[in-house]
């Protein structure tokens, strides 16, 4: 077996391990009568052992892929996002040993699973490095950034648990609406995975020529039935579906098509879930959050920002600036990805100030943590796919 295929098998193993571990954490939370009893629950112990096994195989994927390609596997959307999922699990393990809370695992692992699933929808083959990425700073800058972001993301997981515990889902309210919206967004990501996998399995392809932003001719391949056509498109595969509408040059109609398919699939999934359970999806998860200690979740949410913020600053700003100076001749160039890293940093700086000086604890702090995670994901996904810049490697 070649290193590359060993690597993808290890990733599969860790994916399954996380799934199994989630079930055990679920058992730990469900079976526990109170906070103190669930801390030393047998299910929880098995859960963390399986999580660690999953993490080690995940690390094995990372190392073997590094060996196969000769560079840190951090150079495209698949690699970066998979590593983010891995570090998220790593950060969870760290905080588990600090606070011994199975509830955290019950929510952190499914989010890691969704992230890895999302990553796998992108081209997974090993790509050689373009000149700008050929530097040791690739490993240093990107790994530090991902570790920082993963620890910050744990804060959102703790925040989510806190909110699930404290928001009354039986009566309509603003907070109930937004909490359900967060869950709905997660279902949308699932919709992307489901729809993308479906069309991948059927091998759908549609080819077009079009006129790009700089008025030059270009070619594009769709893996979804093309709902929207690129600017001035002409079909090369006439048997494929004819797009409903032609988009102006600034809109990437292919991305828009994938987006609309994902959202549509997500909505169908969500409606199905609502029909089956006949209540807001957030309230299905609520019983699992009830066992968590509120103060503890609040503290984990805060502590993970405290741990993650310096790491993020170092990786996403300081190392980034040093490398940018080396590769692009300037340490800061207001590239969208850079700006969004700054925005993330400013956001968490505001979070810390509000918490320290304005006493924003509990629900407010939990909401901020969730918003912070949304900003991180926006920088990871939307900035790469929608706002073109120097960092668009995927």
């Amino acid at each position, binding site marked *: 077996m070649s290193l590359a295929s060993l690597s993808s098998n290890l990733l599969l193993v860790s994916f399954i391990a996380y799934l199994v571990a989630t079930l055990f954490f679920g058992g730990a939370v469900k079976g526990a009568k*109170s906070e103190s009893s669930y801390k030393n629950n047998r299910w929880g112990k098995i859960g963390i052992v399986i999580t660690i096994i999953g993490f080690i195989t995940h690390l094995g994927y990372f190392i073997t892929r590094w060996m196969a390609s000769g560079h840190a596997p951090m150079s495209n959307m698949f690699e970066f996002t998979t590593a983010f999922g891995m570090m998220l699990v790593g950060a969870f393990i760290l905080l588990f040993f600090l606070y011994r809370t199975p509830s955290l695992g019950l929510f952190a692992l499914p989010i890691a699973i969704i992230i890895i699933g999302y990553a796998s929808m992108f*081209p997974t083959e090993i790509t050689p490095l373009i000149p700008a990425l050929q530097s040791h700073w690739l490993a240093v800058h990107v790994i530090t950034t991902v570790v920082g972001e993963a620890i910050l993301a744990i804060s959102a997981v703790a925040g989510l648990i806190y909110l699930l515990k404290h928001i009354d889902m039986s009566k309509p309210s603003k907070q109930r609406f937004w909490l359900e919206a967060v869950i709905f967004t997660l279902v949308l990501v699932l919709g992307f995975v489901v729809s993308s996998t479906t069309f991948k399995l059927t091998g759908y392809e549609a080819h077009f020529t079009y006129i790009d932003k700089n008025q030059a001719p270009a070619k594009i391949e769709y893996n979804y039935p093309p709902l929207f056509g690129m600017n001035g498109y002409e079909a090369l595969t006439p048997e494929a579906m004819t797009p409903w509408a032609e988009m102006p040059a600034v809109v990437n109609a292919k991305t828009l098509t994938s987006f609309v398919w994902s959202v549509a699939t997500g909505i169908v999934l969500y409606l199905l879930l609502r029909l089956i359970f006949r209540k807001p999806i957030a309230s299905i998860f609520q019983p699992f959050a009830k066992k968590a200690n509120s103060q503890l979740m609040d503290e984990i949410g805060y*502590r993970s920002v405290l741990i993650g913020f310096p790491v993020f600053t170092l990786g996403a700003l300081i190392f980034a*600036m040093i490398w940018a100076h080396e590769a692009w001749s300037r340490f800061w160039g207001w590239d969208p990805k850079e700006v969004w890293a700054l925005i993330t940093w400013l956001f968490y700086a*505001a979070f810390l100030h509000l918490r320290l000086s304005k006493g924003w604890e509990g629900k407010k702090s939990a909401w901020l943590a969730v918003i912070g995670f949304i900003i991180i994901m926006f920088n990871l996904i939307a900035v790469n796919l929608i706002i073109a810049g120097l960092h668009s490697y995927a």
Partner: protein
Amino acid sequence: MSKIKCQCGHDNPFGTVLCEKCGRPMTEEAKKSEVVDMRYEGSARRSQTYKRSIIDKVWNFFSSVKIGVSIIVAVLVTSAIGTLFPQKFYVPVNQDSPAELLAYYERLYGFIGTIYYKLGFYDMYNSWWFKILIGMLGTSIIIASLDRVIPLYKSLKKQRTKRHASFMKRQRIYGEGRSENADSALTKAEEKLKEMKYNVKTEDGAILAEKNRFSRWGPYVNHTGLIIFLFGVLLRGIPGFYVDETMWIREGELRAIPGAPDFYLESNDFKIEYYSKEEASEVFGEALDRVGQIVKKYQTDVTLYKKKEEGLVGSSDLDVVKDYSIIVNKPLKFDGYNVFQMDYRLAELKSMTMQLIEKKTGKSFGQFTIDLDDPEGVYKLNDGAQVDLIGYYADYNGVENGEPVSKSPIPNNPAFIFEMKTPEKPKGEKSFVAIQQTLETEENAYAVKFVGADTRDISGLTIRKDKTLYILLLGGLIFMIGVIQGSYWNHRRIWVQKGENGELMLAAHTNKNWFSLKKEINAVKEYADLPNYEDRQDNESSIEQEEGEK
């Protein structure tokens, strides 16, 4: 300035909330509160005390965290708006032409693009309001830090070991209870606390155990780092601190480096390499199949020269400094300058080779090569023939008023007027020769034919010198130290003391991470048999603690 005298005899500065020494509440509000606000030790902060003059008002404005956070959010939002559409400097049109810029935004983004341009968002980060926001952020950081750090430092320095009961009772963690042997409990607590690396002070039946006070300075250290960083950014405006130039250099060319006096650069070669399937088909084959060609390397081989001291300008007076291959991520470094590989153009015409032939027989008089940068006037050929170059148009763009015209000095489309002199036609025949085109005024017997051309590549290089980098790096380093100092350690204090009636009182405070503090207190409590305590903000745990004890 009036002082507030506490019952314990200490003179506190005006505006103090909790006595610096014994912790007694000084204000009505503090006396009424159940848990006192310990954030700045209840010290007298300028912003909370003086509110009259303009200076007070400005000071109070900038020292407010609410204002600080608002500024952060304003920077955040404006930054985000700036990423909506590409910024001016990423737009591939003439940067100095507002009309072209506007047309670009209008063409691609329509009405919203026009508004984006009109509001100045297309150059957000250089706009005056963005700069003002950053300036306000800097001011806020300085004032807010000074307003807090000085009184905080003073009151932590002056704090007494023995606190007044009213201070103890108003802590978030507090407990009291009878003790069989209060004195031995205190001794044991002291022993255990020391073992846990606490700094323990005792005074008259009271213990103050303190740990990691230095972490309290973390925020102020990181703010100092930020200020140094912003100062470094400010310095870039001063000439001499910062050089940012670009140069285009052709293969074989020797040019003065802009922005770096006395230094010259010669380009020996420019090349692009691609990943080939042969070298890595097993690993990269799939990706290469999907994407097509992927660039492996952009490289300019250069020689760096320095003008000899007291030498004149000219190649003979240059010393070779070094040969270097500039690639992306490996700039050429010399004397504080960095030269970066940024751009390239391939295959610009360098020279053209022609030959003179007799049309009838096809007989050649030999070839000659025209250097397109510096064409000679006369080319001597075999058998006494010669070609005079009497007109050269580097970038030929048609004929105006009977004269050929050149659009630019760059040889994109060279055209020539030759005068061909042979022994048979000593007066010469004229011919206009351009690419794929020959014009003659009358039927000539001879003709200049195109044989071949040499091309060369051009490298786009950026030259940078940035004396502020070290200041920025220092700022970053100090920021990191401060933020780690403040985040990874917590300032913890535990007070244990004997009350008036022989009961034991236990109180504790930390700036964060209360769970770990409670773990430590529990350890001391068990060892020294201290009274039970209560965390007034965590009802769930307290209940469980009681349940556990039942």
